[in-house]
């Protein structure tokens, strides 16, 4: 009995391992330094306009950063918390029937994590949406405008592809022939508007940003 007790009390005791050898410590230290430089450089490269040094440091680290999913910007509610975005859609079937839905839908997408996944679909599509940059009247700004326009065109292409992918998925799961998606921006109330009796649920706070129509067999 007494022996058993003694064994138990020793079993939880902690003893330190001998300190690792110098070679081991140097090798591990180098690996740690490389890892930490990458972990710091990835968000530093993402903050607009992005550190040149961080981008240079990351040049050879693509295999590690991409394969290990180390690249994150940690921009939580930054730079400013903005309006929310939802997608309202109408499915049109061959027999003339229509069905409406929205992404995210708190009644359908439950529990909350599931709702948030769908909310991110509409938010990340909205992040690609931007108005076409207006052409300047002054020809001196033409070159700057052209660069801006090319960037917008690439982003517009990404937006269109993603929206089409969403649309094709909706057609796929519903069997509909056509889907019309409205990307809506849900504007935020000011404290003054709230005090004046308005509600965040007011329909006029929703502004249609873009209408995308996808049909069965349409190109991706």
């Amino acid at each position, binding site marked *: 009995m007494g022996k058993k007790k003694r064994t138990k009390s020793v079993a939880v005791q902690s003893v330190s391992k001998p300190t690792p050898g110098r070679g081991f410590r140097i090798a591990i230290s180098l690996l740690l330094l490389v890892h930490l430089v990458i972990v710091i450089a990835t968000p530093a490269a993402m903050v607009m306009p992005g550190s040149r040094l961080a981008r240079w440091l990351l040049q050879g680290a693509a295999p590690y950063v991409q394969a290990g*999913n180390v690249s994150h910007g*940690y921009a939580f509610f930054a730079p400013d918390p903005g309006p929310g975005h939802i997608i309202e859609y109408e499915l049109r079937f061959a027999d003339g029937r229509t069905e409406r839905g929205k992404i995210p839908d708190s009644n359908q997408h439950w529990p909350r994590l599931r709702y948030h996944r769908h909310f991110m*679909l509409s938010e990340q599509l909205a992040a690609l949406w931007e108005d076409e940059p207006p052409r300047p009247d002054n020809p001196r700004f033409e070159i700057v405008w052209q660069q801006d326009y090319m960037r917008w065109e690439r982003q517009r292409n990404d937006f269109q592809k993603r929206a089409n992918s969403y649309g094709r998925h909706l057609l796929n799961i519903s069997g509909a022939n056509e889907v019309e998606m409205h990307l809506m921006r849900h504007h935020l*109330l000011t404290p003054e508007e709230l005090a004046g009796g308005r509600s965040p649920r007011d329909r006029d706070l929703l502004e249609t940003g873009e209408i995308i129509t996808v049909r069965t067999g349409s190109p991706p």
Partner: protein
Amino acid sequence: MNVIWKAVQSWLKDVVDGWDQFWFTAIDPATLASIRFFTGLLLLYTHLIWSLDLSAFFGSQGWISGDLLQQTWEAQGGANHYFWSHFLSIHSTSFLWMAHGFAILVFLMLALGAFSRTSAVLAFLLTVSYMHRAAGALFGLDQINVMLTMYLVIGPCGARFSVDAWWRKRQRQGKATVHKMRDSVSANIAIRLIQIHMCIIYFFAGARKMLGGSWWDGSAMWLSIANYEYQTIDLTPLATWPMLLAFLTHITVLFELFYCVLIWNRLTRPVILLTAVLMHLGIATCLGMATFGLAMLIGNLAFIPPSLLLALRLRPQPAALPQSRGG
């Protein structure tokens, strides 16, 4: 000149000693094991929720089609990119469910601490693979999940509070050998990496907020709680307390920017940890991101010393424990 050289040498020796002590001190794996348990549970929950829309997010005809995902990867990393996901090799729904079932089993094993090192490696690979495939539906939770899982691979995360530990103890019962729970250098390295990574996350979260005007004028908290899509608890009546909202806005930025400094000081650490708990519970309950809030709190666990966690165990210890270092 000789005096200066000696001073420099002495300083360099102090730096090397400090570095060695910081990284290569053996500690009890209790903190890492606690992180394993909670991360495993969170991963299990996160991936069980994916089950509700498995084909929609991971099937080839999902919200983000396989073709679009490939194009996105090429746009981000060029033609020879290193993004990957095992889901792109799965083309039938039954295989998709089998792969998902295997992942759920791995996350359950990680939480329970069964074959811990193997399940930690598999959990990390699976978490990355899910993240890569589910591009378009990710948020902060996924970033923290992958960070925590990556570091669990490094240390003996199943040395305590696990099926592995229970099994080892059971195997040794009745044998003459006396088992000693060994402190571990790799447990310390894993914990240090989580600690530093948490500092980096908070710092950049704060730094990126400094680019926005609303975090300076104090209106950001209002903009966050007024967002109807985020709301789980309606805090808009706080509109009548603009100074409180401004105070909370500034505290958030200050906390995030200075976490990386104040968390290392013994006197300020409890205050910083308490602020983290309050902030993340607030985000969890009011802004509908309970999982993200919990993930950040699990990361903060890295700053709780093993001795405290062992003292908090429900089962009373038969003898006084020697103080474990680290944390």
